[in-house]
């Protein structure tokens, strides 16, 4: 389906909370240096699916994952895989900005420090903040609290924090849902720039956003019998203009969800 070798691939991926299945048998290919969006109605398992890619579901005691997630040929759920190592190759940005109650500088330096970064920290912090398009706004107050920033700035700071560990994939879980339209545009612009160097997966409620920023789109759905199954996957242009499945069409034209 992709015209390239995917960076992430799921095969027969299902997730259970206790005995309840919330993601059902998903086979998804994620393109390298592209933006892939996951859309679908509330409760369709989008976020849970996203959290399989950096094993964040491990933090929920009742969660159980079946199937495979391959990252450049490595099975992320293999026996000898340490989830903490995966998480600095596959970074994450959350629904609400969640900067640590520390200075702006310490927020960005957090990841490199715990991962034993030995190089020039000032340079790395600056580079990450520049990359996240927030450097000019914060360069004069790197030592002030990150909590004093606006929501949009906090979210870009969180992106800078994720970039500082030099991941290869960035997962974004509705990164703009707590932001105003202007801050949302800034983040979308940033995502486009970042996709030159990073592979990005974004979960979003906002179909216009998925259509605007993403190269590929996966549509997940929930039905009475099945929860969190993938209805359709393809280039965003095709999904949003000429979907193959009528359920996709119904969803993107606003007939449900």
């Amino acid at each position: 389906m992709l015209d390239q070798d995917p960076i992430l691939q799921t095969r027969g991926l299902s997730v259970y909370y206790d005995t309840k299945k919330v993601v059902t048998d998903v086979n998804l290919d994620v393109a390298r240096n592209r933006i892939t969006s996951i859309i679908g109605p509330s409760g369709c398992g989008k976020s849970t699916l996203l959290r399989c890619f950096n094993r964040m579901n491990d933090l929920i005691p009742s969660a159980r994952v079946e199937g495979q997630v391959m990252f450049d040929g490595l099975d992320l759920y293999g026996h000898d895989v340490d989830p903490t190592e995966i998480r600095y190759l596959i970074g994450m940005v959350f629904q609400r900005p969640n900067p640590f109650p520390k200075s702006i500088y310490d927020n960005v330096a957090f990841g490199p420090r715990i991962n034993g970064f030995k190089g020039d920290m000032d340079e790395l912090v600056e580079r990450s903040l520049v990359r996240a398009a927030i450097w000019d706004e914060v360069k004069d107050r790197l030592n002030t609290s990150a909590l004093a920033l606006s929501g949009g700035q906090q979210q870009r700071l969180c992106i800078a924090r994720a970039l500082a560990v030099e991941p290869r994939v960035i997962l974004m879980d509705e990164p703009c849902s707590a932001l105003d339209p202007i801050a949302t545009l800034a983040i979308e612009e940033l995502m486009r720039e970042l996709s030159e160097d990073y592979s990005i997966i974004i979960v979003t409620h906002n179909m216009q956003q998925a259509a605007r920023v993403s190269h590929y789109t996966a549509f997940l759905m929930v039905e009475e019998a099945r929860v969190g199954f993938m209805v359709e996957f393809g280039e965003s242009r095709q999904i949003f203009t000429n979907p193959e499945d009528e359920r996709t069409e119904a969803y993107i034209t606003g007939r449900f969800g």
Partner: protein
Amino acid sequence: MAKNPVGPPLGQGARNAWKRMATERAIAALLFLSTFLSVLITIGIVAVLLFEAITFFADVSVFEFLSGTRWTPLFSSKQFGVLALVAGTTLTAVMAMVVALPLGLLSAVYLSEYAPNGVRKVVKPILEVLAGIPTVVYGYFALLFVTPILRSISGDISVFNALSASIVMGIMILPMVSSLSEDAMRAVPRTLREGAYALGSTKLEVSTLVVVPAALSGIVSAFILAVSRAIGETMIVTIAAGQNPTFTLNPFVPIETMTAYIVQVSQGDAPAGSIEFKTIFAVALLLFVITLVMNLLSQFVVSRFREEYE
């Protein structure tokens, strides 16, 4: 218009409305009185302390009281250096915190970050039972159980000593430190933890680098409240630490704390109105001021350093 309106139709309800308002006012007045009563009692206590202490300071200068290191009001050669008592209180409180802080913090980190739900549900109430044990029990536990063990380790330790009382006092305030610290840690939003995990943190790194710093204001205020509890603690030190006002930091010898002194005089036969009798008001006033400062400090720390999360 609704078919079945709740209550009487407008107009006919006027009499009921008056009744309701009267009830509301009576309840508000009752609630105000009960609140005001406790404020009044507090003011009364402070007033009595102040009044008696002022008559004491007519005989003994404040400077002599606060700077002297010998405390012998019950002897014929009377000296009123309260520092001997303050030293006893400080020594026991500090050593109690040496026991309670690390243990309390570690158990709070365990309960908040590591313990599975089932374990926490069992352990936390058990820990809190420690807070419900009468302090007199702790006192005899110190004197009859801990002290003999300490004395078997070192012959230099007296029957009454600050060390034994402090250790047991530390155990007594442990649940307070751990419970309040744990509350502060659990109030740290889950999203902060996830943010740290998403950067490749281990559980230990999440706990020590994110959760504890984010909860620091709560932890510090728990600590200060525990110190003020240790300073005011009476029974354990009265039973196990001795009645020898000594200006020393040696934990092996008998000492006397401010609280234990107050007990000693209140039980003794110092005639009301005598200078011996008045000393306890002066000591109590000082004790009150110290714990008041501690509590204000704790409130200041919480309001000044609390991080506002959405």
